[in-house]
């Protein structure tokens, strides 16, 4: 038992390295946190594992395989408060039961990893539908998102595949990260790497939004109105950038 808080620079690779270090040295951590979210206090002592040239990701993927590492990445991208500790216990058990770890749903950490991953995928799937692009003067498309989990990568790749000939920008409002696509490559940039973007809507934009809203309201059958069911499938937290829900919210 100790009151160390293990800190890692906010990247998946760094987190894996910290976990590797802890497991190798048989340390049972009480707390692991990313540097960017950690707030110092009197009672605990922050500790950062020294970086080396060791590629922890390669090591992990060789040892545990793609499926397990895919799940671990989902957990890393989630907003779960205890995600680092969950991953720590998950990998400790994966060392013990390398072949059957994913069937061991009676272990809290395994169950947590599977559920969190499921949740991240579900949100990604929902946002593939709920994201709204607006067309700007020079023809490029711009969308803002506010999601529980960090799913910008998955979304950007989805739209790259779907609309390879379009220029688009997706801005993750919560995390200050942008995805840019210029019909060839995808770039991910932080706020401080982006000059202030000024946007003007294209001439068509307001008209198209109006047509969409018209369609949205016309397609509902009044005799079957069911707002509760609507909210179940499309929770209010996603309404902010949904053009058709603006007036209602």
């Amino acid at each position: 038992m100790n009151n160390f808080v293990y800190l890692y620079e906010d990247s998946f690779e760094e987190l894996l390295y910290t976990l590797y270090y802890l497991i190798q040295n048989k340390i049972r951590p009480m707390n692991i946190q990313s540097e960017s979210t950690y707030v110092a206090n009197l009672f605990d002592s922050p500790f950062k594992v020294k970086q080396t040239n060791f590629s922890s990701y390669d090591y992990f993927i060789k040892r545990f395989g793609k499926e397990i590492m895919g799940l671990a990445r989902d957990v890393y991208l989630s907003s779960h408060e205890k995600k680092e500790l969950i991953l720590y216990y998950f990998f400790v058990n994966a060392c013990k039961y390398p072949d059957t770890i994913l069937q061991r749903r009676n272990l809290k950490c395994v169950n947590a990893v599977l559920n969190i991953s499921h949740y991240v995928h579900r949100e990604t799937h929902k946002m593939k539908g709920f994201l709204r692009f607006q067309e700007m003067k020079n023809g490029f498309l711009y969308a803002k998102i506010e999601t529980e989990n960090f799913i910008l990568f998955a979304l950007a790749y989805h739209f790259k595949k779907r609309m390879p000939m379009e220029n688009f920008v997706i801005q993750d409002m919560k995390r200050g990260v942008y995805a840019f696509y210029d019909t060839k490559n995808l770039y991910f940039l932080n706020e401080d790497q982006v000059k202030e973007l000024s946007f003007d809507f294209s001439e068509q934009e307001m008209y198209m939004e109006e047509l969409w809203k018209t369609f949205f309201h016309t397609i509902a059958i009044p005799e079957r109105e069911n707002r509760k069911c609507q909210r179940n499938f499309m929770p209010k937290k996603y309404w902010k950038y949904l053009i058709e829900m603006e007036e209602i919210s």
Partner: protein
Amino acid sequence: MELKEKLTILADSAKYDASCSSSGSDRKNESGLGNGAISGICHSFSNDGRCISLLKILMTNCCVFDCKYCVNRKSNHVKRAIFTPEEICELTISFYRRNYIEGLFLSSGILRNPDYTMEKLIETVSLLRHKYHFSGYIHAKAIPGASDCLVKKLGVLVDRLSINTELPSESGLKLLAPNKQSKKIEHTMSVVKQNRSRVFTPAGQSTQMIIGATKETDYNIMSKSSDLYQRYDLKRVFYSAYISVNKDKLLPTLELPPLKREHRLYQADFLLRFYHYQVDDLLDREHQNFNVLVDPKVDWALRHLNEFPKEINQASYYDLLKVPGIGPTSAKKIIESRKIFTITFQDLKKMGISLKRAKYFILCNGVYFASKDIFQKDFIEKNLVLEGRELTSTQGRQLSLFGNE
């Protein structure tokens, strides 16, 4: 007429079509716009709680037919409109780029005759695919009575075709849709079935029928569905609760659409397709209609209580599926897990398997969730009905089946 007005008229008259699913096709992008998403994607949910996935419109609401129940019938005095192929393409592309929709669902009233209407549909869809290079999802109606070669032409352009059954029986059609014959409808279905391939309607065909406009029982309806599934490899049968839009002495006078009944039919439909039930397991000549109080699976379980409780650690996959509250996903989880450890009630909870209904029908390692005295039909039924009452009042699950399959 302005585009906005056309859209209002032609979306309004398309809204009674139940299907909006965009699943089943993984059409690739060929340096144009769009691709298919195999699981389907819902882009919004309208105020009635139904999923909006496709731009669902009619090409025109002009119609030479006079089906009694239909808002667009010839004898109705409603404003008529017709989209040009370019207008449909441009709307689809503009909506798709902004990620409002997953694709187009194009239906139509009968213009002149079935062949002419089909040709117009083909022209539109062909333009969208070839000139606008659209490779998103397209669902089109095939018009019964159109020649086979036109059905084949349309089939290679779209992801899904559907042909409406309209009413569950031939006598119903004769009464309310005198211009339609089930022979023609089923012939078109068989043409689609015979030609189906990776490039011909990859997402298969579906159909829909109106519930509550004619006198068929649930048993008649489910038998019809089961028959259609078997004979034409349908992906889905959609049930659409009758909404009274026209006044006619041949039509029933219903204040509200029979939504509860529609819901039970969807539940039973899922039992046929994913749970290996037969219509005769669920209903028979004595029980021609579903129990309104409990869902068809619970109803079946209560009538076969001697087969329960099932031991979670031993029951076969098919037996697990018979437990109310356990579906294919949960059943698979259970089978995977019990190879490694003996499952207890606690474990089931951890695995995210809802015990609300299941607990009455299972044993975990020989243990029942409460004293075994309560394992009686009356007690279980009472508890499940009370739970069901909450559900009907909220209607929370009512329309969930309109999501993607």
